[in-house]
């Protein structure tokens, strides 16, 4: 498997008359992280949604390359793992059932959810609707890493996590980058101390 | 007015046609104004 690179240039997006993103460019290679900072409403989440293929930018290029070949939007979406506040799970199902369902869709090994759950310390038999906000955040991390994603897109990744929670998710991020195949884009209102950050992008202002 | 008579048909169609043409002219004027503004 060859490493994945991501490059984007001139990405713009407006909602109605409000220009949320105006010509943002950046670049990340495999094994590296890009840290995106900026005030509330500066378009961090919008940028991440564009990179994930959940939102079409009005203009600009997003190019994801693997083995010298550039991937289309559907292929890119398949390689994305995302942690974001607006990702939710089926409240009527247990944590394990949710993950088993998504592991099926993602074609991950069936044992993978249980391994990750144990890493982050989350009970699999709890209903997803009955999780605290910190546990919900841990579940988002597990969901994002199910299929060993190439593009890990993290929107306020350590929000609501307690000290042990933050430690273990930082470890997971470190492992993801250390494998040298995938990359990460991390969005946070304030700067974060994360290793392997190759570039910083300040939005707004 | 007698139904089926010429007058009836003339009136209905003249209303439609003049309506469409007036609309067209007004539209053209507005576009021209806006394009000049640029």
């Amino acid at each position, binding site marked *: 498997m060859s490493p994945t690179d991501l490059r984007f240039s001139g990405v713009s997006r407006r909602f109605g008359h409000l220009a949320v993103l105006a010509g943002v460019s950046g670049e990340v290679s495999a094994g590296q992280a890009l840290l995106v900072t900026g005030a509330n409403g500066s378009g961090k989440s919008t940028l991440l949604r564009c990179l994930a293929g959940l939102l079409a930018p009005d203009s600009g290029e997003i190019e994801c390359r693997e083995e010298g070949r550039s991937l289309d939007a559907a292929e890119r979406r398949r390689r994305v793992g995302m942690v974001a506040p607006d990702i939710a799970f*089926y409240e009527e199902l247990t944590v394990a059932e949710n993950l088993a369902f998504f592991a099926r869709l993602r074609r991950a090994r069936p044992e993978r959810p249980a391994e990750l759950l144990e890493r982050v310390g989350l009970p699999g038999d709890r209903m997803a609707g009955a999780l605290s906000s910190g546990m919900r955040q841990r579940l988002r991390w597990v969901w994002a890493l199910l299929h060993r994603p190439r593009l890990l897109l993290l929107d306020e990744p350590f929000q609501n996590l307690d000290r042990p929670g933050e430690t273990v998710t930082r470890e997971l991020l470190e492992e993801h980058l250390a494998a040298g195949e995938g990359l990460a884009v991390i969005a946070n209102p304030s700067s974060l101390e994360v290793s392997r950050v190759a570039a910083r992008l300040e939005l707004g202002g | 007015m007698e139904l089926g008579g010429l007058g009836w048909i003339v009136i209905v169609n003249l209303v439609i046609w003049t309506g469409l043409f007036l609309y067209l002219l007004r539209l053209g004027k507005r576009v021209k104004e806006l394009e000049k503004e640029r």
Partner: protein
Amino acid sequence: MWRLASNWAAEALAVFAKDWRCEFRTRYALNTLALFAFTTLVVVSASLGPLGTSAARGASVLPVLLWLILLFAGAAGLPRSFVHEEETHTATALRLAATPSALFCGKLAYGLSLVWALELLVAPLFLAMVSLAVRSPGLFVLVLAAGGFGLAAGSTLIAAIIAQAQGRSTLFAVLAFPVLLPLLILVVELTRNAVAGAPAGMALHQLLLYDGTVTIFGLMLFPVVWNP
């Protein structure tokens, strides 16, 4: 190739199983659909009065009422399959994880099973309550099955569209009814034939053609509806 196809089928099946599992935990769709259908059924047959017992007039009017009950009950329950995903924000996770065409098939299978369950409940009750005798039961069942399929396929596609818009509940009826109208006319005609014991004729071919067209169109264009 074979692996690709079996993966795709496994995905569709997973979506179908997930929807039914959620459904069994809450019973939302089953309850609303069954109650809605049953209530309208009672209202219709009670207010119909003597018309129901007059065989000559009943044979032409009653099939219309049967399909209207099914159509409105479907409109009350079917859009939820996509609306719920958007409302509870599970759509984001699903967008990133699922293959669109497999997702469409899974949702279609779920909608289809709901409609068929509904028909299984409504049709015998309706026939009994308005005392309508069906001369060719084989055709009647066939029409219910094929008509239900068309209803599910059209509704699933429209549900995917309106789930991303505002004013979802009213918009569904506005968008779905013009699309479902040819289906409605065909199934009413065929149900009349089944009641009268007349042959199915061209209408059956046209019904199957409609089902096929809507399904293929849905499979081809759903990815565009679902993803930006």
